């Protein structure tokens, strides 16, 4: 099969060749699943979220503007599906509580201590402990390597809010991952 561009495949799908959508899935499932996995912490939920995202994107393909990149559009859908899945587990009240209690006692651990560990599983666990709206910002930044404006676009937020969330998230992580010399 000749390698078609995303927009060519999407045009074919829009014309009724639904089977061609499998090509789009196979192109982006890896990125989508790893994003969902980092967000949700397990493969079962990640698969569910990405499957929902794929079906939703297929249904809403008419609204996709072919001049923009498919992945950017699709990533938004994946993020929304992940947040929906999380919101079924965590109530917003809990998120707000975490925000207040953990953001307030900001310790300058990052400057006073040393990075306790860079053991990947520990870091990932610390990221998964972040409130979801902070976690998604961290994942988009460090996994997807997005800039602040790109994260803002993906989450439909202002760049200012993204910056605040990112900094708060880093402070929370610092608290978990950094050891102050006195404590050692």
């Amino acid at each position, binding site marked *: 099969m000749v390698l078609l561009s995303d927009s060519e495949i999407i045009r074919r799908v*829009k*014309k*009724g060749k*639904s*089977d061609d*959508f*499998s090509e789009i*899935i*196979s192109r982006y*499932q*890896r*990125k989508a*699943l*790893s994003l969902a*996995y*980092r967000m949700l912490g397990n*493969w079962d939920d990640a*698969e569910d979220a*990405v*499957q929902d995202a*794929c*079906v939703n994107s*297929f*249904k809403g393909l*008419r609204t996709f503007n072919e001049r923009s990149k498919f992945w950017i559009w699709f990533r938004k859908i994946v993020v929304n599906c992940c947040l929906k899945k999380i919101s079924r587990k965590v109530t917003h009240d809990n998120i707000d509580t975490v925000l207040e209690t953990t953001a307030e006692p900001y310790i*300058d651990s*990052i*400057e006073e201590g*040393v*990075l306790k560990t*860079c053991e*990947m599983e520990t*870091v*990932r666990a610390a*990221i998964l402990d972040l409130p979801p709206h902070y976690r998604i910002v*961290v*994942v988009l*930044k*460090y*996994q997807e*390597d997005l*800039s*602040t404006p790109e994260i803002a676009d993906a989450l439909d937020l202002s760049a200012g809010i993204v910056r605040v969330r*990112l*900094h708060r998230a*880093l402070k929370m*992580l*610092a608290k978990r*991952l*950094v050891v102050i010399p006195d404590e050692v």
Partner: protein
Amino acid sequence: MKCESKFEDLLLMLDGELDDSKRVELEKHVEICSVCYERLCKLQAMDSCLRSSLSHPEIVPDITGAVMSQIARKPKRNRCVVYAAGITAVAACVVLFSLHQPNKTITPVKKMPVVVMVKEPRKPDIHLISDREPKQERVVRAISEPKSVRTAYHRLSPKETIRPDGKKSLQKRYEQTEPSTDTALHVEIHLDGESSKLVVVADPSEHVIITTLQTKAATMPPGLDVSNIERPPLQTVTNVDPAALLISEI
């Protein structure tokens, strides 16, 4: 420069989001400030730690089959195809209909509201009769009940009667009160260019007094007085000239 305020700027610098002038200034500061230098190193360490921890997993499950089976389960018709099919079907019907009646010209139907004022709160039948051959008569549907129908009767206590089979039954009774004046019956007639008579058909056993057909004065044929006609078995109210009968105020 106060070092306390540098944390945010150091993060922005790491992200490459600090504007050039501030970045140059901060770089110079970091060169001479050991505290900020140390902070930057630690932030860089944390940055790279997060990036390596959040690298894409090497093995991910394949969900293509699962998604495609979900999509296949919910077949959705292409909306464009549905629209096209609908338009084609309508067009085909129109063509077939016009082929079937080649000599008949389709005249637009004009909807016209009329108010018939009656003395009694009964609902007369109203017909629209074509004066062209072949004459056709259509019953015009009234679109409202006579307005004062509730005020014309009041309920009496039921009367006990004995039925032929010997059982007793209660007969509902109503007493006719003084009918209200000017009971309005709204009707809507559809003029198709061929109808010319509006006829009110009243049952002779009922008191139907047609007081007026509310139209523009100019459209009422002169000399036609309908105010004192009682119990008309078939009463022509007015000749309707489709061109003139443009009732504007109801």
